[in-house]
């Protein structure tokens, strides 16, 4: 059970975020759901890199080789992803602000009516 549980949690978070995106009535809420989807990818990546009874591959306070370490490659990927993801969220929020200015609403349904 423990062998796949973290991956299933990641999948659950992703699906929950998708559900929120699809049923959202407010674009700001949708952006929040998208950031939930992003966090699913962080959980998945770090779960792939984990090793039992290991510690972080940071050797400022332990002797190299004295303890097993987890995979640093996925951690590096996740780390940059977190910060870049935040700026992308900011970009999306800027789009939402612009939409609100142009159309006076942030409800996706009302927006598609406007277009049609």
């Amino acid at each position, binding site marked *: 059970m423990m062998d796949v549980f973290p991956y299933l949690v990641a999948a659950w978070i992703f699906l929950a975020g998708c559900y929120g995106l699809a049923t959202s009535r407010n674009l700001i809420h949708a952006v929040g759901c998208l950031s939930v989807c992003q966090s699913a990818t962080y959980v998945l990546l770090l779960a792939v890199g984990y090793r039992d009874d290991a510690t972080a*591959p940071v050797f400022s306070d332990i002797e190299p080789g004295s303890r097993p370490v987890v995979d640093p490659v996925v951690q590096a990927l996740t780390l940059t992803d977190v910060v870049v993801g935040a700026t992308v969220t900011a*970009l999306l929020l800027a789009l939402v602000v612009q939409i609100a200015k142009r159309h006076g609403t942030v409800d996706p349904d009302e927006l598609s009516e406007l277009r049609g």
Partner: protein
Amino acid sequence: MNRRTRLWLVAVGGAGLAALLVAACLELPDFGGDRHPYGDRAVHESLARHTANTIASVNFDQRALDTLGEISILFAAVVGCVVLLRQTRDEHRARPRPADVARPVRRYALAVLPVALLTGLYVIAHGQLSPGGGFQGGVAAATALHLLYLGADYRTLERIRPVGLYEVGDALAVSAYLVTGLACLIGAGSFLANTLLPYGTFNTLSSGGTVPLLNAAVGMEVACAVVVLLARFLDQAVEIVEENGT
């Protein structure tokens, strides 16, 4: 397409996706397994280059080209925000009223601000030794700067934060990253190759060759980027008012 059919569509698609994801999860290597060939090689390389924090080594040395891609995305996102949130012709700036802040809160903000900035710098500077680095420290320092908005008021923040300067700083930091890469190309024969500078003593601030330089460049770029982003959002939310119905 009405709401009901769309919900059904989402349910069917979601169920399919869920089935595929679960099937994929069952095929993944077991959680906590002992087989990490890439990780082991990365740790070995990083120790060979005297970088104590393997993650910083992966980010700024072994996969430095990827990081260049990441900071370009960041840069592009910031440029996009600045363009989207600019002041349009039918808007004008209104002077925000100074906020009334309780004295303990104001004192706390002013006392913690230097501590927080220092912590941000510490996190950036020790990126190649202990957990931390340009990405985290940059965000921490930039967020700390906005304690001024929270604890004092918006005018004070504007006085010590010329946004133009931060925009220039952002661009300069990206160019610094590129210039370091080009210096490696000229001096060592390949772009961003970490063979130009001596590796230094293990576990000291100057260890790791070009890692500290790239780290500092990324720290500066992230800090400037976050300041510029927040400045645009604060402008929109606090200052810029649409002229309407007049």
